[in-house]
């Protein structure tokens, strides 16, 4: 077998996980196992999955009755305008806002952080929270806030830094959100009719498999945790189709090289120590119970909302004509929005889904292989 896949874990390893021959074989198996006329709709909830699917043109390998839709998998897209407004208001007080690059252009009710920066606010992009802390240590006379956006993959990094007791001039604006409540919401959207979940690999690295147990058990929903190389995603789809055919919904792990049943227990412990789970708003979705992370009472000194007394209750999430709220829950595809690549482009985004490199609209806008 001269085309055998070998392992070495480095850069070349990742190329192996993109073997075209293997992809073709799996695609053939998918075609073989897929029902012939019934429409099957699988949903993923991860911007990186959408990127892999779109970038490698994986939809073109699937039979036309097998659809893979994108759910609310971009943590930047679902930050409500009210929280952007809070960051802008804090920045206006002369505080340095540090954030991930994607967050900069997300629209607030009036303006984005980028627009605030153009007006003179000090907004700086960082690679991660520890870089933000380093900036604060270097300039002790200035106040620094880290705008902590991200799902369970990112939340432990915030937790570690806050538990290390960062410098006095440093605080956090926590916008962390949790994925399983959003998946549960999708099952309640009557006309969406999902036939299976491709669960997000890197969120699962942290939370493990257990939080997904209810999907096959309570909702009889096939659920497969999958990685992010094209072969991972195709295998995930194949495993979902197999469950569908056997009519035996269960929870399976395609990404076992990274995802353990119990997740990363160390990370879960620090998250629990730093945060309490609260109900919160998601852009385009509304209020979801038990879906966000807020710093615990004893860490109040590092909570930017408390420190600067800024609490914005409501913001303007969706502009007139923008259909991000339907794209976010997978009800429409980006090119079904009348603004897509007309009034709303990567250069001048109207909605949040066009901003982040993992927003569904942005992924579609920057890839030509998006359609079947």
């Amino acid at each position, binding site marked *: *077998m001269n*085309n*055998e*896949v*070998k*392992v070495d*874990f*480095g*850069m*070349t*390893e*990742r190329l*192996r996980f993109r073997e075209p*021959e*293997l992809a073709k*074989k*799996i695609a*053939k*198996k998918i075609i*073989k*196992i897929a029902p012939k006329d019934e429409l099957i709709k699988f949903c993923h909830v*991860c*911007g*990186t999955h959408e990127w892999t699917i779109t970038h490698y043109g994986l939809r073109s390998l699937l039979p036309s009755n097998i659809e893979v839709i994108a759910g609310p998998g*971009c*943590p*930047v897209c679902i930050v409500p305008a009210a929280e952007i407004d809070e960051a802008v208001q804090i920045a206006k007080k002369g505080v340095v806002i540090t954030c*991930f690059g*994607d967050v900069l252009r997300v629209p607030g009710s009036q303006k984005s952080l980028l627009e605030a920066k153009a007006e003179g606010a000090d907004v700086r992009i960082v*690679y*991660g*929270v*520890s*870089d933000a802390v380093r900036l604060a240590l270097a300039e002790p006379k200035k106040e620094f806030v880290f705008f902590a*956006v*991200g*799902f369970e*993959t*990112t939340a*432990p*990094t915030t937790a*570690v830094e806050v538990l290390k007791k960062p410098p006095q001039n440093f605080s956090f604006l926590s916008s962390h959100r949790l994925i399983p409540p959003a998946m549960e919401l999708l099952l309640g959207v009557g006309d969406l009719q999902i036939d299976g979940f491709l669960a*997000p690999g*890197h*969120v699962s*690295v*942290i939370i493990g498999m257990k939080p997904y147990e209810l999907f096959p058990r309570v909702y009889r929903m096939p659920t497969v945790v999958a990685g992010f190389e094209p*072969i991972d995603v195709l*295998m995930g789809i194949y495993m979902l189709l197999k469950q569908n055919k056997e009519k035996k919904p269960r929870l399976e792990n*395609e990404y*076992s*090289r*990274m995802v*353990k049943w119990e997740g*990363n227990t*160390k*990370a879960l412990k*620090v998250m629990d120590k730093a945060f309490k789970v609260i109900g919160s708003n998601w852009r385009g979705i509304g209020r979801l119970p038990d879906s966000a992370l807020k710093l615990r009472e004893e860490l109040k000194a590092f909570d930017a909302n408390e420190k600067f007394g800024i609490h914005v209750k409501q913001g303007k999430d969706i502009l007139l004509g923008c259909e991000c709220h339907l794209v976010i829950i997978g009800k429409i595809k980006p090119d079904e929005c009348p603004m897509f690549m007309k009034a709303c482009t990567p250069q001048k985004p109207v909605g949040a889904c066009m901003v*982040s490199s*993992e927003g569904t609209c942005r992924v579609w806008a920057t890839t030509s292989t998006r359609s079947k």
Partner: protein
Amino acid sequence: MCLAIPARVISIEGDKAQVDFGQGVLKGVNITLVETKVGGYVLVHAGYAIQTVDEKEALETIDLWNEILSTGIE
């Protein structure tokens, strides 16, 4: 945002490690959240190692894929 990339640990000092992403890309990352050793592989997200790569599982995954290759179409 949840992008995470595997890298090999080159050296460790306290809770920091120097890792190699391949092709000469080296970076310092925080390893508080994992237990790793020099030569091991970690998954890096936003400057933090968030998991160690399970080499045995990776080999088994690849075995599974090879099995698919060799069995052909069902």
